[in-house]
């Protein structure tokens, strides 16, 4: 049956492990921050007047003596997971630490930590430690990973944006002053049309983002606007640990959406070209996903992709669009004024 065959192919398909590796680093750093947050939260549980929510009585309770052991275990596991050392075991240990947090007391539930647990679980199942990791370096090479956990990971990111938008589709958010209470900056401007625009805009943007991340046409703009969205949240609401962790988890997870087939693009450059000589060594160092083949030939800087070839400044921005350190802001270089300035900059190098 063709459907069964397609299903078998889907679950047998493999891909490079590096995009998940990049996501692993971002999620791991967030998990480290959230370990410290957990220590702070659990100290509050020990207050003599704390209302305890022991909802699963058979789970051993945490005590002040064991708190630092528990947090220490969490931190060690996170550091190993982030570095990609025994990443599967370390990932399972991080998930176990997060599950324990939720089981020990009902008041320990918190959405950012829940998301961190889910993403860590998917990265562990997806064998994210095979790419961009100490394990890969020790083995002297990287192995391909199954594609379906990567797909599930991407769906999870989209679902969070989609449900975040759905949860806001009610009058309390759209028509009341709730957004003013959450974002004091908007409240300070005190202009009702702006408040409505911010509320409806937030909902519309989150719906758009959940789909645009999958679209080749809009993906770069989704990366840029998503990055700006999370940065704006930090500036508007505050640099809280949860929001910082959310921002790091989401922006690093965008890397999973990059179509990163190793050596699938060819970059042609010439050593005599001043621009290429200045920038290509840096770009090569930043090509952590190893998407490009770098070949010296005569002629202008050129990148060849599965959709065609681009030259000059456009080639430069096309390369930046898939590098983990630059993909989330590279779309800004496509804005008309910046692009015009960039092309002049490029031509200036070439004389």
């Amino acid at each position, binding site marked *: 049956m063709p459907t069964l065959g397609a*299903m*078998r192919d889907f*679950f*047998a398909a493999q891909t490079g492990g590096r995009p998940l590796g990049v996501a692993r680093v971002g999620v791991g750093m967030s998990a480290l921050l959230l370990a410290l947050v957990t220590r702070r*939260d659990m100290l*509050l*549980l020990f*207050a003599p*007047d*704390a*209302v*305890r*929510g022991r*909802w699963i009585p058979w789970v051993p309770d945490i005590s002040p003596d064991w708190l630092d052991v528990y947090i220490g275990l969490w931190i060690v596991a996170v550091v190993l997971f982030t570095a990609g050392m025994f990443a599967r075991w370390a990932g399972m240990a991080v998930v176990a630490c997060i599950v324990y947090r939720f089981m020990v*007391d*009902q*008041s*320990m*539930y*918190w*959405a*950012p930590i*829940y*998301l961190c647990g*889910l993403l860590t679980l998917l990265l562990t*199942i997806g064998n994210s430690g095979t790419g961009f990791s100490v394990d890969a370096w020790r083995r002297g090479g990287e192995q391909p990973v*199954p594609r*379906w956990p990567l797909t*599930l990971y991407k*769906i*999870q990111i989209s*679902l*969070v944006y989609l*449900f*975040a938008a*759905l*949860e*806001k589709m*009610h009058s*309390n*958010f759209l028509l*009341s002053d*709730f*957004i003013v*209470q*959450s974002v004091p900056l908007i409240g300070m401007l005190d202009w009702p049309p702006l408040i409505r625009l911010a509320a409806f805009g937030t909902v519309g943007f989150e719906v758009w983002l959940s789909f645009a991340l999958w679209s080749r046409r809009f993906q770069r703009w989704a990366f840029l606007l998503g990055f700006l969205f999370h940065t704006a949240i930090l500036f508007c*609401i505050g640099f809280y640990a*949860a929001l910082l962790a*959310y921002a790091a988890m989401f922006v690093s997870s965008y890397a999973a959406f990059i179509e990163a087939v190793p050596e699938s693009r060819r970059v042609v450059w010439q050593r005599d070209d001043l621009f290429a000589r200045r920038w290509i060594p840096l770009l090569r160092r930043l090509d952590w996903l190893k998407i490009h083949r770098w070949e010296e030939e005569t002629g202008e800087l050129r990148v060849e992709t599965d959709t065609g070839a681009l030259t000059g400044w456009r080639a430069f921005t096309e390369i930046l669009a898939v590098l983990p350190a630059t993909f989330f802001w590279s779309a800004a270089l496509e804005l008309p004024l910046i692009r015009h300035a960039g092309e002049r900059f490029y031509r200036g190098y070439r004389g």
Partner: protein
Amino acid sequence: MPPFKTILAATFFCGYLAVQIFLPSLSWLSLSSGRWGWGMYAGRRGLSSISYEIHFPSRPAKVAVEEYGTPVTIIESEGKRIGSIVSTVSRRQFVLPYLCRTHPGAEWVGLRFDAQEVVDKMACRP
């Protein structure tokens, strides 16, 4: 890929997806407490205040108790702090029994949202 591994992977994939659509949908439809959903800063519950009443058989007046801030502090009407909550817990399951425990002799305790009528009442054991 061996067939059992394909079946295992397919089961996990579908199960995970089902749970991750079902639980946030429940939260969205307000059938759950908002846990396991993605409603941070959505203001969905729209609760501006949670308060309690403690009734004693021996006293004519009830004791009013309110929650403030995050982490939540539980304060009696005279300004005395009587408890704290780290984050969201089921008020019915945990705070009402706590108020009974910390107020010996109370007959019953009640829970209100947004200064409405008492929505949940719990008799305290003597």
